[in-house]
């Protein structure tokens, strides 16, 4: 039955999230934008135990599942209906991004690194790598994912970082350079974290040769070489990493090390990575929507102070240009959010959502960018001023149109899906 109501049980959690966003993140948003590379220590301290608690629960679920698989016991039937985990997460991310998306990105902790381990790791690997994110009392730790290279952006198959097995020591030896790694500095230099590095074990095999490897903090030969200075999301940590004969244990490879050309199963590892996008894209869409909602609310607030309120029933000949813009932006924002909720809800129902994920990311990334740019325009000299937050929100919003697959890459994915075309039939 079609239903647009927020599950009751999520309400307390989201109320608390709203409080954090409003009272802790928003007041510091400008500060961390102006002080790039400084860490939002208050937020980290407050948020770490909450996220660690969630990771702990997730790890326990993985243990139970593995136990059940071993004993052949059937998992408990879920009588309560579908999960609300993902929908809850998306609402939370939207609210935190409304507070300050730069700080939120720091607060992902395990982040995409943990997601990769959860998606394809064995139980042993989950224990070994994820426990560090699952102790609320311990020091905070970060996980990151490193895919992009100077010569491999949207074309992930072009990565040139190599992993060679040293059979004598049973270690993988990694060489290459990774860029635009979110939270990479925090993961490698400022905590006991790790980065999931994508490298090729056989360049001639193309995608089938690409594998994810867990590279832990303190690994010799791994160096953070640069912290980017960015247009927006300045509180977020974006780094370059050089791997120079970095040696890691054999068991740090995620998924199978086998490379079998022309065997569809052999691109499983790569497809696994692509599958994590089904989950991460609605989340990026949620961040975009949080930022745009902040901009739109602030704009309406400032307009109201100037005596302008929005009429939803004014005849077209009376409607002002500003009212029209606001109504248009509200419709765009709502439509983006509904697409995003649908993609997220499908995760909770266990339904395949690759198409819907790319749809919501493409839509939300673009609409949020346009909304924030328009808000700067509407507020004139104050919109452009660094005294107010609007200009910062505009800078912050743009990244959602770029990372986790650019707008165009997501369009390409949607196009292939609706046309029933393979990547050969509709090339990038």
């Amino acid at each position, binding site marked *: 039955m079609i239903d647009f109501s927020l599950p009751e049980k999520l309400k307390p959690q989201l109320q608390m999230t709203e409080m954090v966003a409003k009272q802790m993140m928003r007041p510091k948003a400008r500060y961390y934008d102006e002080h790039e590379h400084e860490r939002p220590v208050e937020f980290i301290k407050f948020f770490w135990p909450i996220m660690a608690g969630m990771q702990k629960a997730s790890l326990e679920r993985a243990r139970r599942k593995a136990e059940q698989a071993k004993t052949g016991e059937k998992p408990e039937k879920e009588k309560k209906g579908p999960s*609300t985990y993902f929908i809850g997460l998306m609402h939370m991310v939207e609210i935190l991004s409304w507070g300050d998306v730069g700080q939120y990105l720091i607060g992902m902790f395990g982040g995409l690194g943990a997601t990769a381990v959860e998606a394809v790791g064995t139980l042993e690997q989950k224990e070994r790598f994820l426990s560090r994110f699952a102790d609320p009392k311990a020091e905070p730790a970060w996980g990151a994912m490193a895919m992009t290279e100077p010569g491999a952006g949207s074309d992930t198959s072009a990565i040139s970082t190599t992993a060679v097995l040293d059979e004598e020591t049973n270690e993988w030896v990694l060489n290459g350079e990774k860029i635009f790694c979110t939270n990479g500095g925090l993961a490698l230099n400022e905590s006991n974290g790790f980065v999931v590095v994508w490298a090729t074990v056989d360049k001639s095999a193309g995608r089938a040769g690409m594998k994810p490897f867990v590279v832990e903090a303190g690994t010799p030969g791994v160096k953070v070489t640069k912290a980017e200075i960015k247009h927006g999301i300045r509180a977020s940590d974006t780094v370059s990493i050089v791997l120079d004969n970095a040696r890691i244990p054999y068991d740090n490879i995620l998924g199978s090390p086998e490379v079998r050309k022309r065997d569809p199963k052999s691109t499983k590892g790569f497809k696994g990575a692509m599958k994590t996008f089904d989950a991460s894209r609605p989340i990026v869409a949620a961040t975009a929507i949080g930022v745009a909602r902040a901009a739109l609310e602030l704009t309406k607030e400032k307009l109201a102070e100037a005596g302008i309120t929005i009429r939803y029933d004014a*005849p077209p000949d009376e409607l002002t240009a500003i009212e*029209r813009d606001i109504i*248009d932006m509200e419709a765009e924002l709502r439509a983006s959010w509904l697409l995003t909720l649908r993609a997220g809800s499908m995760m909770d129902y266990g339904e395949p959502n690759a198409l819907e994920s790319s749809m919501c990311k493409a839509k939300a990334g673009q609409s949020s960018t346009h909304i924030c740019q328009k808000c700067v325009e509407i507020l004139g000299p104050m919109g452009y001023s660094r005294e107010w937050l609007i200009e910062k929100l505009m800078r912050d919003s743009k990244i959602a149109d770029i990372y986790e697959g650019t707008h165009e890459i997501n*369009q390409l994915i949607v196009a292939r899906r609706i046309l029933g075309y393979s990547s050969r039939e509709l090339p990038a």
Partner: protein
Amino acid sequence: MYSFTPTEEQQMLIEAIHRYAENDVRKIAHEADENSEAPDAVIAKGWELGVLPGLIPEEYGGYAEGPGAITGVLALEEMAWGDMAITLKVWTPALFALPILISGTEEQKKQYLPLFCDIDRPPMTAALIEPNPLFDPWRPATTATRHNGTITLTGEKTYVPLAAEAERLIVYASDSETGKVDGYIVEKGAEGLEIGERNLLMGIRALPTYDVRLSEVTVSAENRVGGEEGTDYAAILNRSRIAIAAMGVGVARASFEYARDYAKQRVQFGVPIATKQAIAFRLADVAIEVDAARLMVWEAAWKVDQGEDVTQAATLARHYVNKAAMFATDSGVQILGGYGYIREYPVERWLRNARGLATFDGLALV
């Protein structure tokens, strides 16, 4: 708890309507547009699907099991996927029935609603739009002047669907003293009621609409929809916007699917044009807009069913659908290129029909 899946009953209704839209409506849509006339048999068959009785409670002869806005928009999208003019023609009695259902007095409901639960489509309609480029539904120039126990209606209406055959119609007019807009039930043959020329429109040509002139038409005070309390006009307008938006989604989807299939088989430069990113990406954008528009309509309808105030949601949904439907149908014509402009192909008809969405309830934002 969020869910984006219709119930099983709704799914069955959608499938039944889809069969009708595909096998009956699509077959005659082109000819009906060319001839400005739809065959009675197809309209009757559409009526027999029973969508409107499904929104009317049992006590008035229908079989509604609860609030029906969601069911209504699902049905309208599917039928309008077949053709919007045919859908509007099948649906015209709702212009009378729904205002009574939403805002009628108990007596009005008892008197009129059972008429809509019959196997024969009742000849009833409503007159809202006026021939003025700045027409504002909140300030109709048609006036209602109260006397002792009677009301006199004066003004000019246009775009009144099926007015020539209508036995009764609801006329919307501003109270000459308060300016409040109410609906008034006017019977065929009332003195001063004149059905004028059939309108010549760009699209929805299979739906005959007419000018209607009211020169001091006198009706009893009991004919005001809602009786002494008057008409809940806002609720009626909102519901109408959502219904029209639902049809817009149907037209947009029709155009999207047609252009998608065409692009896959049309070969230029030695390959199907769908393999070109310029075409493929535009189709992707259209697919996103169609889904987004549908979700906007669903949410607004869901809010109606929850009994929430939907003025904002209905405005946003309607605004969004207008834009999305124009984008989708314009893209349809564009992707078909020269053929898109030829009337033999349906996409130009869908573009003409979609342009009317902004007009039909008199609030053009786009």
